[in-house]
């Protein structure tokens, strides 16, 4: 269980906090979607939930804190933190290590740095590449990848570390629909194996398929939380700059014209 308790956070050099009193539980095996308008604080929440803020990037928790499995994470060294929670940044270019000559080495870096034996590292690397169906990229130079391929490689690196909690900031932003589907399947499998996942996404179609719960962040505060189906079809969602899933939009458009909306659900 990863738990944020009434967290308020401000970046170094800024007077005003970006997050206000955010409380969020991420249970084992659960997938929680995080939605909200641009600049609501979603990426910041991801950094705080992964312990990188304030731990690595500075700034200050002006209230509350992060707990994982009952233990406070404040002051935990990065290598401890990395065994408990992983994070995937929005932009793969900022996450690829730049030191690996091939995608295979890139993905192997994570498990290797966890101190796993070589045999286990290789097995996990192969499995992660297979899960995302990118075995054919194994020998490619990470610098030469397209945006979407880079995103899949970053995800493979995270999967190879098998973190008990995983925080993902727009993991499919640069992916084609097929890549998005692969990622969806991989995340569902990861959750089924007991990991707790928090996913910040604009693609509500994906969240509708994937998530148990969805939380809405606006102006740094959680303004709604609940079962995915209920939150994603809530009429107030659009007011937060969140596009409802296609099916919800279509149902509304049909109903507005007095047409039977049941056709969408078949």
């Amino acid at each position, binding site marked *: 269980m990863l738990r944020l308790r009434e967290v308020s956070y401000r970046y170094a050099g800024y007077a005003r906090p970006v997050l206000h009193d955010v409380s969020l539980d991420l249970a084992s095996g659960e997938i929680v979607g995080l939605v909200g308008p641009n600049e609501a604080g979603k990426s910041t929440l991801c950094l705080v939930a992964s312990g990188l803020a304030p731990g690595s990037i500075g700034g200050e928790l002006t209230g509350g804190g992060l707990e994982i499995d009952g233990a406070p994470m404040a002051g935990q060294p990065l290598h401890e933190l990395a065994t408990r929670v992983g994070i995937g940044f929005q*932009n793969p270019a900022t996450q690829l290590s730049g030191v690996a000559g091939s995608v295979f080495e890139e993905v192997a870096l994570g498990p290797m740095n966890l101190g796993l034996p070589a045999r286990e590292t290789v097995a996990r690397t192969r499995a992660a590449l297979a899960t995302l169906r990118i075995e054919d990229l194994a020998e490619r130079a990470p610098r030469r990848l397209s945006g979407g391929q880079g995103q899949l490689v970053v995800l493979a690196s995270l999967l190879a570390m098998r973190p008990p909690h995983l925080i993902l900031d727009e993991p499919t932003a*640069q992916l084609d629909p097929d890549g998005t589907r692969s990622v969806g399947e991989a995340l569902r499998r990861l959750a089924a194996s007991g990991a707790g996942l928090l996913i910040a996404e604009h693609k509500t179609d994906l969240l509708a398929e994937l998530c148990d719960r969805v939380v809405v962040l606006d102006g740094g505060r959680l303004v709604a939380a609940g079962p995915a189906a209920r939150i994603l079809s809530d009429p107030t969602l*659009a007011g937060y700059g969140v*596009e409802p899933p296609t099916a919800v939009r*279509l149902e509304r458009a049909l109903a507005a014209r007095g047409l039977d909306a049941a056709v969408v659900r078949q």
Partner: protein
Amino acid sequence: MIRLTLERVGFVYPDGTRALDGVDLQVQPGEAVAIIGQNGSGKSTLVRHLDGLLRPTEGRVLHDGLDTRSVRTAVMARAVGIVFQDPDRQIFSRRIRDEVAFGPRILGRSRERVTAAVAEALEIVGLSDVADQNPYDIGTSRRKLLALASILAMETPVVVLDEPTTGQDARGVARVTAVVETLRDAGRTVIAISHDMRFVAETFERVVVLRQGRVVLDGSPGEVFAEPAWPTLKATFVEPPLPARLGARLGLGSTPTEKALVEALAARGGPATPVR
């Protein structure tokens, strides 16, 4: 106004990766074209040929019939502006206003024209109120709009957008859509790479589908997302938008957009019953 022509264009990266393979494509002045296809299908490589960032290893790229092999990249950049996927690769100024002014300034435009172009570009992407802030004090999504503004300010006849809606919330997508419509109304050519099928179907009059560096479909959204094209789409791992799938199942013909689907259902009248 400029007509872009690609003649049997092939491109192989120095490491041997083939990204384009015999691409034939002509884009008329004022067209709005979306390029779709799987990750790694050559979309980004293709558009980098339009402004000379990459030169074809086979075939030719023509600007108004002129082979661009003899044209310097700096000259091609006056005709074609590209907004990249990742804004942080093209932003370097400390003030948003200066970032947007950089392009038209190096093109040698008069001070008045630069000022006017900057104001207009910031207005259309909705960043006027933060013009004096540092680009890194606004979020990534607005930095993407800033990158868009800095290309708009160069007033190139052709504007290329690489994944413009990525990371944008509903309002951001509406902004980008409005930018495309404004450019089209002004007679400028817009070419966009996108995985966002709703944006593609609703905003563009022509859709080009790439697969492994080849053009496999080229037509209106109605044609490209129509049922007969599905096997080709499937082979390129592109899924038609939900309204297109529903429309086909209900026997309504090709309805690539939500609007088209609702209109078709309303026109048919009566309860909607799937035909299969």
